[in-house]
């Protein structure tokens, strides 16, 4: 029985890759090494965010603060760096900002029972507002080389961004598959009552997940600005939809309880490639959004139907 599930996952992946390669072959310049490495580099932002988002979706939440944090964290770090502060200190400050936002999300969701979508929407809006205030609505740039290297440099020929994506993938993977906390996170998404009965603190799990998600987001933001050598106050808006899309395409179930970081990573790569190939075809980003929107709604609908059918099948006599 296990092997059948495994087979389905592998088949799905193979199909996806095959379809993807076929489509890609129509697009000029897609299958070049440099472009592919570029795809991974561009996907890394989405991928890192998606790792955090996966955990949030598993516990039946959502994180809409990505758009704001992706700009706010690097804005804080950037301003500090431009004022001559030590790069590590500046980066740490940016990450700290992210952690506090995540903590706040967790607080609202767990203690005040505020729905996740509104909490994170508000935090996202506030962070974006703050990044606009911090420099009067203007972007900043011209960062120290060591920072820019993080975004654009390579190590043994592979961009550092890719390594970062890999590291976050591993972190998320290890948490979910190898720690007790990971089991609890999945259980919370699966059957909260059982978890409570076992005496496990739901609040702690929620805090962790939201703080972790914001941690991922702030690192992704720092990486993004390193890649661009700029912090644009509204640079995060494009990535909000894509991180959700990455998880959804990767098969993370919006209803909670199902999902893995590897799936989200695959989803991120697919989105990244989709964007890349559409760019190469000259399709305007705004038009691309239309596709992404349709894809998200369709996939959520389909997974919902499948789940409903499965539930009917395994239902008892009555």
């Amino acid at each position, binding site marked *: 029985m296990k092997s059948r599930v495994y087979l389905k996952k592998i088949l799905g992946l193979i199909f996806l890759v095959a379809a993807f390669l076929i489509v890609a072959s129509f697009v000029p310049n897609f299958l070049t090494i440099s472009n592919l490495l570029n795809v991974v580099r561009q996907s890394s932002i989405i991928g890192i965010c998606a790792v955090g988002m996966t955990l949030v979706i598993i516990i039946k939440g959502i994180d809409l603060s990505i758009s704001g944090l992706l700009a706010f964290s690097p804005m804080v770090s950037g301003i500090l760096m431009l004022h001559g502060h030590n790069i590590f200190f500046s980066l740490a400050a940016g990450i700290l900002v992210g952690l506090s936002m995540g903590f706040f999300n967790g607080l609202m969701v767990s203690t005040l029972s505020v729905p996740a979508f509104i909490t994170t929407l508000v935090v996202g809006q506030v962070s974006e507002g703050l990044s606009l205030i911090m420099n009067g609505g203007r972007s900043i740039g011209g960062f120290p080389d060591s920072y820019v290297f993080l975004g654009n440099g390579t190590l043994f020929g592979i961009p550092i961004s890719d390594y970062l994506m890999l590291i976050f993938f591993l972190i998320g993977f290890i948490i979910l598959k190898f720690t007790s906390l990971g089991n609890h996170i999945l259980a919370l998404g699966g059957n909260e009552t059982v978890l409570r009965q076992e005496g496990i603190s739901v609040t702690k799990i929620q805090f962790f997940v939201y703080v972790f998600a914001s941690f991922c987001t702030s690192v992704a933001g720092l990486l993004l600005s390193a890649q661009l050598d700029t912090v644009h106050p509204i640079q995060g808006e494009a990535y909000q939809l894509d991180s959700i899309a990455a998880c959804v395409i990767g098969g993370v179930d919006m209803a909670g309880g199902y999902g893995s970081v590897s799936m989200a990573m695959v989803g991120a790569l697919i989105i990244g490639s989709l964007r890349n190939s559409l760019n190469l075809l000259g399709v*305007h980003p*705004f038009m691309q959004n239309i596709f992404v929107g349709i894809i998200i709604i369709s996939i959520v609908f389909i997974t919902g139907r499948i789940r409903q059918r499965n539930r009917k099948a395994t239902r008892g006599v009555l």
Partner: protein
Amino acid sequence: MNALLSSIRYFAKKNGSFLIFLILAIIASIAVPNFFALDNFAIIIKQSAIPLIACIGMTLVLMTGGIDLSMGYIVGFASITSGLLAKIYQWPIPAVVLATFIVGIAFGSLNGFIIQFMKVPAFITTLGSGYIIYGLAQIVSQGSIVSRLPEGFLAIGRTEMLGLPSSVFIAAVVLLIFYIIINKGIFGRSLRAFGYNAKAAEVSGVPISKINVSVYIASGLLAALAGMLFTIRVNAAQPNMGGGNFNFEVITAAIVGGTSLFGGVGSITGTLFGVLSIKIIENCINLMGISYHLYMAVQGVIILIAIIFENVKNKAL
């Protein structure tokens, strides 16, 4: 003494948003120079009118326990549509208005259909449709803005009556219509029942599919109307009109107005005062010369305070 306290508490619960509005107005009159002036009040009313129209739509959606994150983008689409049809294609004005309404109804129906029949959660649906609509608006506009719109079109919203533009009166009419529908109509009662307890409402004979789809059609329609009136106001049609910020402002106003995110609780008059309250704050920020971007952050704090307040109030119930 206890009786006095409990009647104060009762009044506060029923008229919370009015009190907030009153308190803000008083504080502003005292603390902010140039606030307490007739022409400043006129500005506030003019600023409130169009968002109020959209906010009424959002209130309906929130009362079902849902959310519409695409409203801001329908505003943009409606803007460019009405501008193009009025100026470039030179349609007769009534046709332009009708077409804009149809746009809002169409998008709203789509949202409603996906949410009710395809059972995709509201925030995902409207998040996705928002992006889709934004993309479509960009395509339709081909990146350009349409300005210097025909006089006849502009007259819809700019005709001066009693010192205020006609868009204010249009908003008042919308306010009145929906006040009647929600407070006195069968639809309003069914909507509230559905928002409180969808299952019990269904068993009691409330046609929940019809209601759930209707509220999204209403929010789409009202967003389109708001978009058209915005376009008239600034004499420019652009796909970027409204957007995520506008959406957020509308949600904030609705919640300050006492609408509950969980459904069932909400009122048109509450929304009115919610919008006025938000606009007073915006007005003060302008008068004090504070950056508009700060206002965005402040909005977030406002909505959080409102939600926490709501939570505390409910727990104390």
